[in-house]
């Protein structure tokens, strides 16, 4: 018997300490302090980087030793380490247990019906006002009743001899705000676990015109997508006259079982999702040694237009004219050097692509002109002919972040609930109001004395203003009545 009781006592004390605020405070402190480590030690980085970082603090000779200790402690990937995860688990248990422990009491407070209060009790409330009116008792009561109702209070009445009391409460559910926030944190954790368990994060580069049906995770393991994705083109656009990128975009086409099912131009902040897998524009680059096609839109004043796909050295004719062009040179980033005044290529990446075309027409000397992709007006030729340099296609790849995260919906739901919970806990208060109306003197002769008292869980100043407003409204209404 004694043993059992002892056992129960131990269990009870464990339960109590799991529910305690002390534990919550302790865990929050530990989480805050320990999280700092992972912001100083670079996470999941190459050892050399962190060893040279540690050398700054511990000297070159000790750094490798300290590094090894840190590795053992899990500091190099600490947010996934057993001890950090254990703290998060303890944190969750604390949230659950303390909510279970406290919720019934809170629920009781919310559900407890409000009772009328003695006048002396009302006078000792944190917020109280007294007014006197020359009127009839039931009139005053009616007016207060309406005013409270207009302020969305559900009013109860209690009558005694020579006095009437109105009492009401609102916003009791505000006391649940903290629990709602606790639940939302748990939901976010659940969503994160679902994401890790059933989702993946991967990456894939697709050359312009290329197709893939797999992506690669951090360990370079290939993950089959279950369908294939083609990149029609990749493009960087720039702000006018400066080399600041305005948008990175790729046109992607999804093929499922050989059929085209989706086509979208993706941008940063505007991904494509198919069958739960999302493709984000994350990088781009040049394919080494690739030979591409020059895509030109050529047109003549007669309105004839044509899109041409040409290789280096190939020739074309502007439709409807005798003007012949031949592609003779290409620059990834053309500019005029400020000092030498010569045309130079200032970057290996395609910042300001330009194509040099040699034009030939009967009765004129050959001439060569540069046409810049970012400045289409450079392609306005004589006699109204136009050559627009659309793209140098086939030399770039698009880098896509590929993610499947079935938990993200749960995480977002958690976030939404958290926002609601925070709103309730910080901006709504549990307010109670008592209005005690009594006739001074005897037999309906004396003035009516009204005592308004109230309490609130927060925002007392606003609450006082609310009560003032109600009183002002009633005095106004009373005046209106006496005039009639």
């Amino acid at each position: 018997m004694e043993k059992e009781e002892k056992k129960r006592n131990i269990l009870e004390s464990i339960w109590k300490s799991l529910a305690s605020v002390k534990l919550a405070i302790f865990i929050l402190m530990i989480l805050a302090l320990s999280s700092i480590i992972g912001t100083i030690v670079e996470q999941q980085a190459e050892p050399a980087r962190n060893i040279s970082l540690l050398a700054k603090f511990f000297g070159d000779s000790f750094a490798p030793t300290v590094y090894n200790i840190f590795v053992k402690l899990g500091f190099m990937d600490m947010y996934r380490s057993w001890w950090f995860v254990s703290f998060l688990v303890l944190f969750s248990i604390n949230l659950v247990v303390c909510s279970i422990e406290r919720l019934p009491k809170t629920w009781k407070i919310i559900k407890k019906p409000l009772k009328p209060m003695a006048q002396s009790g009302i006078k000792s409330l944190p917020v109280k006002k007294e007014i006197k009116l020359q009127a009839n008792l039931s009139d005053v009561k009616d007016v207060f009743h309406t005013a409270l109702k207009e302020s969305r209070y559900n009013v109860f009445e209690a009558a005694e001899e020579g006095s009437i009391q109105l009492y009401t409460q609102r916003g009791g559910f505000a006391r649940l705000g903290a629990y709602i926030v606790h639940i939302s944190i748990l939901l976010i954790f659940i969503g994160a676990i679902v994401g890790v368990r059933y989702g993946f994060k991967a990456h894939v580069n697709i050359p312009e015109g290329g197709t893939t049906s797999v992506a690669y995770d951090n360990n370079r393991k290939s993950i089959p997508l279950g369908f294939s994705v083609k990149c029609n083109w990749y493009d960087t656009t720039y702000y006018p006259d400066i080399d600041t990128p305005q948008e990175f975009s790729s046109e992607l086409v999804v093929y499922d079982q050989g059929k085209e099912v989706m086509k979208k131009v993706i941008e940063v902040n505007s991904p494509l999702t198919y069958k739960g897998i999302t493709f984000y524009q994350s990088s781009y680059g040049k394919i080494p040694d690739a030979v591409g096609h020059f895509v030109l839109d050529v047109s003549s004043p007669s309105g004839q237009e044509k899109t041409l796909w040409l290789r280096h050295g190939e020739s074309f004719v502007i439709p409807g004219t005798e003007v012949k062009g031949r592609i003779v040179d290409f620059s990834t980033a053309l500019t005029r050097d400020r000092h030498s005044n010569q045309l130079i290529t200032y970057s290996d990446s395609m910042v300001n692509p330009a194509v040099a075309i040699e034009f030939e027409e009967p009765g004129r000397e050959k001439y060569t002109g540069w046409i810049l992709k970012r400045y289409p007006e450079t392609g306005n030729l004589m006699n109204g002919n136009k050559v627009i340099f659309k793209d140098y296609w086939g030399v770039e790849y698009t880098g896509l972040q590929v993610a499947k995260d079935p938990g993200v919906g749960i995480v977002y739901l958690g976030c939404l609930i958290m926002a609601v919970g925070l709103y309730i806990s910080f901006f709504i208060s549990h307010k109670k109001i008592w209005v005690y109306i009594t006739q001074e003197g005897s037999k309906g002769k004396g003035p009516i004395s009204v005592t308004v008292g109230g309490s609130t869980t927060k925002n007392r100043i606003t609450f006082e203003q609310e009560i003032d407003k109600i009183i002002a409204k009633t005095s106004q209404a009373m005046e209106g009545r006496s005039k009639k």
Partner: protein
Amino acid sequence: MSSANLFDLSAGFYFAALITYVIYLVTRNKKTGVAATTLTIVGFVSQTIAFALRWIHGYSYWLSANPTSGLIEALLRSAPLRNLYESLIFFVWCLIVFHLVIEFKYKIRSLGAFVTPLAAAALLFIDVAGTTTEIQPLIPALQSNWLLFHVFLSFIGYAAFGVAFGAASAYLVMVTESKTEKTYIFWSIIVGIFIIVLVGMGIDFVSLSSSERSQFLQNHFLKSTLRSDSGGVAVVSWIVSIVFIGAIWQFGFGLKKVLENLSITPRVLDEIQYKSIAIGFPLFTLGGLIMGAIWANSAWGKYWTWDPKETWSLITWFVYALYLHARFVGGWRGKRVAVLAVVGFIAVIFTYLGVNLVLSGLHSYGAS
């Protein structure tokens, strides 16, 4: 007049206000107090106009680059919250709004002496750091409504935390009974460091050329004094700093009398502190953490990656969550929670500036 000039003008008014608030604290002359408030309001009006001007400029810039953009989209994309410069300006603006509200609602003027230094520090930081005042085009990753709301709400939250910090520092000195109290020593050190960094940045500002300032964040922060390459200068700076903190500890106690004479009660400071946090915490949670995560997910497909910035904002959140729990269910009162309010704001500063300033510095060194 360009928006940058107007911002400078408002910064001038705020600095003048700061000095006037301090004079008011010392002299308790009512007219000086009114002058301080007036200076703050004038600064605030010019800053508001500058903010609007900058938005308008940004709007026409965006439209010139994106002629097909709709009205709402253009307005959102051109909101002046794009870089360090603009976000700090907005932080100062929010701080001043909160400060003016408190001044008129609680009728206490002297809190200005604790809040305007934050505004001054932020503005000085902008100037020293030589952050670009040009309207910069929005790079693709930043072209998101989530990001805009994220920055907007975060900074309102930060400003609220800043006010709580000001109230908590005033509170800590007011409730001090003797100089050997731990909280008073803590207060002396924090206030000391705050002023030292402010002065140090002032010296950086004077001694750096404008081209060096553009690299300020990474390379030149406090390089003229505490982090000087010349050992002598560094040692002297450290000694001066430590002596200075000692002096604050020795004489800061006098502030208590000054505040008492201005009939400020610790109770009011305590209330301002927790009300500010009660406003800051939900805004920071929603704007800083939730919207930041949603933006990251829509841009990169990862809502949380434990990068130092994210982690530090979570640390900040933990500290304020700790504050709320300690205060409302843990029964902590007075000094202990005030210390938490101070620590919370240090975490805020670290989240916004320290991560770029200290941590990235560490890592870039490691990479070289």
